[in-house]
């Protein structure tokens, strides 16, 4: 069957998608909480104030979460899913855990989707933890030119991780297509 086409989230997605606590996978300030944050930028390097970022990740042990509760969070259950709209400066943040590797000897990553006004369909990417080569070889990172590889790897700051997303331009983020998407892209 042919997949239904995507369409942009438009400028008014704040009515429908954000919810209270959407970006707090764990309560901020908890001992093992990290902040994952960054900016979404357009082809001129201008911040995008109407983008929405979603993350989906394993817990700190590398276990994929199968528990509901991402919308009405109970403060104790880690569900692995979060959502954050960018602020007027194009900045987003999550309070989350550093994910463990889901397979031995593979660098852990957080799956990321990007939506925005002006973006006609969602984009997929990955935010790898810093120094992925220490954890092992990676079939994606190993095939990406060194000048673009960095766009997939978060950097560390005092509170956790920084991951900027460039929709276009010289530092354009590497976006991904999966086998069942083939033919979807021009």
């Amino acid at each position, binding site marked *: 069957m042919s997949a239904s086409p995507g369409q*942009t989230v438009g400028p008014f997605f704040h009515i429908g998608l954000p919810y209270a606590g959407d970006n707090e996978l764990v309560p901020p300030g908890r001992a093992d909480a990290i902040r994952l944050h960054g900016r979404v930028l357009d082809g001129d390097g201008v911040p995008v104030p109407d983008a929405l970022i979603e993350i989906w990740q394993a817990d700190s042990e590398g276990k994929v979460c199968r528990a509901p509760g991402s919308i009405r969070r109970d403060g104790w259950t880690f569900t692995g899913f979060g959502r954050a709209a960018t602020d007027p400066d194009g900045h987003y943040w999550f309070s989350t855990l550093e994910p463990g590797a*889901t397979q031995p000897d593979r660098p852990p990553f957080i799956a990321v*989707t990007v939506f925005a006004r002006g973006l006609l369909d969602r984009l997929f990417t990955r935010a790898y933890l810093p120094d992925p080569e220490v954890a092992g070889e990676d079939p994606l990172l190993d095939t990406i030119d060194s000048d673009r590889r960095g766009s997939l790897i978060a950097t560390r700051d005092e509170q956790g991780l920084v991951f900027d997303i460039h929709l276009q331009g010289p530092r354009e983020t590497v976006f991904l297509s999966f086998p069942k998407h083939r033919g979807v892209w021009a």
Partner: protein
Amino acid sequence: MTTTQADISREIQAGQDGGPEHQPRLDYPAYRSSILRHPTKAPHPVDPEGVELWAPCFGHTDVAEAEADLTIQHAGEPLGSRMTLSGRVLDGDGRPVAHQLVEIWQANASGRYAHLRDQHPAPLDPNFTGQGRCLTDADGWYRFTTIQPGPYPWRNHLNAWRPAHIHFSLFGTDFTQRLVTQMYFPGDPLFPLDPIFQSVTDPKAREALIATYDHDLTSPEFSLGYRWDIVLTGTHRTPLDTDTEEPA
């Protein structure tokens, strides 16, 4: 110089020359806001791994049944034509996507969003916010009660109007199936003029975004019925029985 509908219609026509494509072109300058916001490099092909082979779980703890009725969120009844909107969410292999989250948002009957950025001088409706959620059932069915949204002007070009639509957000059984799209109404005269709708250059694929009137969904003396089915991309992991079980 002011961009007119004639200019945009010429660009839409030129966009057809690239051949029919089933998904929207990201590089589609007739939609002006896309110019600096689309990637210019081809997406990198990769096999999904780890979390990408699974999707977040949502359950009745997340979504109350009343959230599927957008007409009961305030003290009074919203203005406009009440409608029942229902359909099935299927994956690329035709399997129903069971117990998964569906989110919608929309303008009110006058074509105004309850959003600060919407300055269209049409009335806000104190009885309508325009946001709803539900979970699909075991056979992938969703169902909302809402009111028919109005078309509205936007500033892409002079005299630009969006066809009436409802925004939909969907999850599958693996994260690669994530979809956000818009559902339109049959026979809208604004279709040929709208660069967002026309960014899908395959006419058959555009039709997949249009609901059909369904008299079997129409309720006597209550609401008109519309049916809209949604097909996600294929799964990369053979779904397990536990995928169709209802979360606790």
